[in-house]
């Protein structure tokens, strides 16, 4: 029995990899019911009238792309299908490439025009100072958009002088930006806010749901899959749920097996 306690960890890595590959290649459906925090964001977007302004903060970089990019794409699908005006920006220097790719590819599918239906303001450092600046004057915080256009000339930003004119803000976060947006943006300039975050951050965000500081929350790839299922645009996140479920079962089996072996060998040693 004791040799199981000294099992080569590479065997575990290999079995996880095989499980992921097999469950990706084999096509089978698993139910993906939407949890309440995800449903809340969906309902919020559904309730916005056409032409409402939604700001998306792409606060992540390629290290969190696998979790947050599917969320961004699904959320953009929902916004563009509802004819909402989308304003993108980021606090992360590594995000502009990902944000631009997501916005352009989804906007093209709905024949949305840059400048009229959506705008990408790009990256600015400053974090809290930037949010306060945006809350006082959006054009002063971003005199130019990502492509160098004068932001005062863009039709999508007409009548949007500051964050007060934003109908909903959605922060896709890989770091502490959700807290920053809440403290320096939402609380001060009074706009509705939802968030999508990496799974690691998920548990830390639940208190903000309880206090209603966040309207809703998409946590990790599961949150993205639930949103894809809600808007009926099943893509990467939904197909990622098959290996996720299978591997979770394998890990649970490993944990139970490890504990059984540990307690059995301990009893044998004491006997």
């Amino acid at each position, binding site marked *: 029995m004791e040799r199981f306690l000294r099992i080569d960890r590479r065997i575990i890595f290999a079995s996880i990899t095989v499980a992921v590959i097999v469950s990706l290649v084999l096509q089978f459906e698993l139910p993906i019911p939407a949890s309440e925090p995800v449903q809340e964001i969906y309902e919020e977007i559904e309730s916005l009238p056409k032409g409402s302004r939604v700001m998306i903060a792409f606060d992540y970089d390629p290290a969190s792309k696998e979790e947050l990019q599917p969320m961004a794409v699904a959320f953009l699908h929902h916004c563009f299908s509802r004819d909402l005006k989308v304003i993108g920006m980021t606090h992360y220097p590594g995000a502009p490439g990902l944000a631009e790719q997501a916005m352009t590819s989804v906007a093209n599918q709905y024949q949305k025009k840059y400048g009229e239906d959506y705008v990408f303001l790009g990256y600015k450092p400053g974090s809290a100072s930037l949010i306060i600046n945006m809350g006082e004057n959006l054009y002063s915080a971003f005199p130019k958009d990502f492509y160098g256009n004068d932001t005062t000339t863009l039709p999508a930003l007409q009548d949007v002088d500051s964050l007060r004119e934003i109908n909903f803000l959605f922060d896709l976060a890989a770091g502490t930006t959700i807290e920053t947006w809440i403290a320096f943006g939402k609380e001060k300039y009074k706009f509705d806010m939802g968030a999508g975050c990496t799974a690691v951050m998920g548990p830390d965000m639940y208190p903000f749901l*309880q206090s209603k500081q966040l309207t809703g929350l998409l946590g990790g790839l599961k949150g993205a899959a639930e949103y894809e299922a809600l808007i009926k645009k099943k893509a990467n996140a939904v197909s990622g749920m098959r290996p996720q479920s299978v591997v979770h079962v394998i890990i649970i089996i490993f944990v139970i097996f490890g504990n059984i072996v540990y307690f059995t060998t301990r009893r044998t040693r004491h006997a």
Partner: protein
Amino acid sequence: MRKDSNFFVLVGTIGLFVCINIFLMASGKLPFSFDGFGVILGAGLTLAIYSFLYKDNPAFKIAENLYVGVSLGYTIIITWFNFLKPDLYDPLIVPMFSKAATKAPQYALIFPSLLGVFMFLRFSRKLSWLSRWTFAFVVGLGAGVSIPRVISAFILEQIKPSLHPVFSGGETLFSSVNTLLIMLGVISVLIYFIFSVEHKGAIGKISKIGIWFLMISFGASFGYTVMGRLSLLIGRIQFLLRDWLGVLQ
């Protein structure tokens, strides 16, 4: 494994990777273009990074250092074009030195720019004292802006749901139980962190409940962490199977 055999494993793996790519390009599964080579580069770097799970090796080290270098270079370029050029160079430097400029220089930008330059004077023994001015400004401004907002958003707003009545009429039994659990959790965890009183008797029992609440929250966090790390693996394997090998649709 001996050093020689490690070398052969590495060379063999690289050889296999090259052969697969030649086959994919020859069969038309990967386009012979920048896009195709981009996918190959992405696949190669992904495999190089994951090769660490088998053993530390030169391919992993190359990929790791490349990642650090590329991200830093990318950050510098993005910061220049998105921030320094439109907010400092164009409104201050260009009008000062270019006769063709139509707008007057924004001299107000000199003050924050100087403060920024002072930060770098930490490296000079004679002038490092100037960097204290910048730090004083940053600390003073930061504290002034943050303290009221943080107290309001993270303490006062968080206390509100903790003080919510268990039965105020109209709520479901489930939400009442939830409120009760939150109240029990907050009180027991707070008592656990009171170290000036010995944890005996009633205090000891309540602090034990606090430990249980903490353990459950650590378990939830760990579960979410496992889910997050697996999502990253799934995403990379999706990329390898779909974009590189063309196995998935």
